[in-house]
């Protein structure tokens, strides 16, 4: 099953199960079914609760907050995650604040879905990875779509938090298959973190969210074949608040080298937050500080050759790891 289909199926199941769930977004109704077709079929099944909105990201996110305030559930699709900038005030200053600023906990069950990332030549305002801008906001959780996490369970978890969540979806994942890992690697998911590993202790640990997991995996394969470097990959579903899973401790103790990969452009990254968590827990054991691997600093150009040079990819990851390992 492809990732898009898994996501679409999860949304349909949630709509069927939760009579008070709304799905709102630009052009989400049939036959169009959303710019990336993730909502296809949903409005046909649930015409009263799947609504195409005007081009009003700020108001629509506020409307989701109003629904959540009334005890309903809401999912907002931002057509391109870049435009979540227009929803930022509602998320930062209203929806997340409301969870605790009135002196008692107010559950706000809403998820803002943001298709993000480049690689498709959409240009500087349609290709960003905005995760880092949502990190560190009290009462706001950040999740990312992953081929290793079933979306129904992820959405259940997000709603169960009772606080607004932003769900980032790397557009390049939509057409990729769910959960496939080729031998000699194998995958196991526990506590919201997928662990892709080889038998035996790793030489390094790579932490990467869902959108770059396949690029990290491709690099891990070439590192193994060409350099005999063994890596363990950890793919968390929840990016913030970030917790290091307990079973990662053994990997980190063995490897003593940790890398964080993300597509974000350089500067103030999610990886810096992860590095801080890893440093606090493992500082004395690490052979070197956590290495951050991300896209270049600067805007993401449109032209394919320029965009390729800017974005993090398999070979950037491969060379960052060999370099850090002194290869």
């Amino acid at each position, binding site marked *: 099953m492809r990732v898009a289909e898994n996501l679409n199926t999860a949304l349909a199941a949630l709509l069927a199960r939760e009579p008070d769930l709304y799905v709102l977004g630009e*052009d989400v109704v049939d036959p169009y079914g959303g710019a990336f077709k993730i909502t296809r079929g949903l409005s046909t099944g649930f015409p009263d609760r799947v609504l195409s909105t*005007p081009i009003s990201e700020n108001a629509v996110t506020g409307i989701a907050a109003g629904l959540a305030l009334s005890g309903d559930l809401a999912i907002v699709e931002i057509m391109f995650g870049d435009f979540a900038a227009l929803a930022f005030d509602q998320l930062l200053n209203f929806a997340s604040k409301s969870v605790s600023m009135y002196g008692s906990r107010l559950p706000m069950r809403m998820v803002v879905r943001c298709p993000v990332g480049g690689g*498709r030549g959409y240009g500087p305002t349609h290709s960003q990875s905005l995760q880092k801008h949502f990190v560190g906001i009290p009462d706001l959780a950040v999740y990312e779509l992953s081929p290793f996490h079933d979306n129904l369970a992820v959405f259940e978890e997000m709603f169960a938090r009772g606080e607004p969540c932003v769900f980032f979806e790397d557009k390049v994942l939509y057409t990729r298959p769910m959960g496939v890992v080729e031998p000699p690697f194998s995958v196991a998911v526990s506590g919201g973190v997928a662990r892709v590993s080889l038998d035996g202790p790793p030489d390094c640990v790579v932490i990467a969210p869902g959108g770059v997991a396949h690029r990290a995996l491709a690099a891990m394969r070439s590192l193994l074949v060409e350099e005999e470097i063994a890596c363990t990959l950890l793919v968390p579903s929840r990016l913030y608040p970030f917790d290091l899973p307990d079973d990662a401790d053994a990997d980190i103790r063995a490897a003593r080298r940790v890398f964080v990969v993300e597509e974000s452009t350089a500067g103030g990254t999610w990886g810096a937050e992860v590095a801080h968590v890893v440093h606090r827990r493992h500082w004395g054991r690490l052979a070197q500080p956590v290495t951050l691997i991300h896209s270049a600093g600067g805007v993401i150009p*449109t032209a394919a050759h*320029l965009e390729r040079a800017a974005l993090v990819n398999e070979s950037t990851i491969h060379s960052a790891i060999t370099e850090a390992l002194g290869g």
Partner: protein
Amino acid sequence: MTQPVTAVSPAGTPDDADLSLMLTIRAFELKLLDLYGKGLLNGTTHTCLGQEYIPVAIEGLLDPRDHVFSNHRGHGHYLARFRDPAGLLAEIMGREGAVCAGVGGSQHIRRDRFLSTGVQGESLPVAAGVALHLKRAEPGRLACVYVGDGTFGEGAVYEALNIASLWALPLLVVVENNGIAQSTPTARHLAGSIAGRAAAFGIDHHLIGTSDVAEIRRTLEPLVARVRSRSTPLVVEFVTRRLGPHSKGDDTRPAGAVQALREQDWYAWCAAACPGRFPRLDAEARAHIDAVAAEVTARGPSRWVQS
């Protein structure tokens, strides 16, 4: 100052220069869809098929020192201003000679006093800021901003209109109301009317139903002159048609509905009204664009020196 209004051609058809420009924009947009179909273009693009006459008419009322703010559907706006299909195609294809080094692509272009960006509603406040500058620094100049009906969903549009009216800014808002935003018909995204919204801010609004370029200019010339002389905003709303998909291959409208729009298209109307010169000018425009496309496709990749 403003360029002279073109003399009326027989039966209200565009003169050779205007018709040729409209046909060049049409040929350019068709060429893009063709290149996409052949897998030669990367990314996305929004063609202005059906709307070509609007920037052609508007540019006839503008001075090169006026500012133009364009949007995602901006190829016609750019071509009407600069007549530079090679630079634009190179930008879209990431080839040498690209207007913005291939960084911006189809929706992010800046050249002289022309600027486009792909985030809806963003440019109206920016245009108002430029209008504020012009009012003091270059009285008589204006900022012209193109905006679609769907973009009236964005709050920034109203914040800008309010300030433009309060501060009497020389802002010309050209609304290309093509009846649809991506897949959503105007009736499902816009309550009330654009006229009513302009009226709410005390801003003059003028509705244009025709695609006769000379008539449009005759009607608008005194109104645009007032924007300059009195430094007040104006909303001009064109009732127009989007003949192509929103971007590429994403048209979910029934074929019959699109066919009905084609029948109202300026192209069909001009072809019938000028059987003599139309086929010649159309063939010339297509040949020109074919040659540009062949030449640009053969160029090397654009170079970007990041500073």
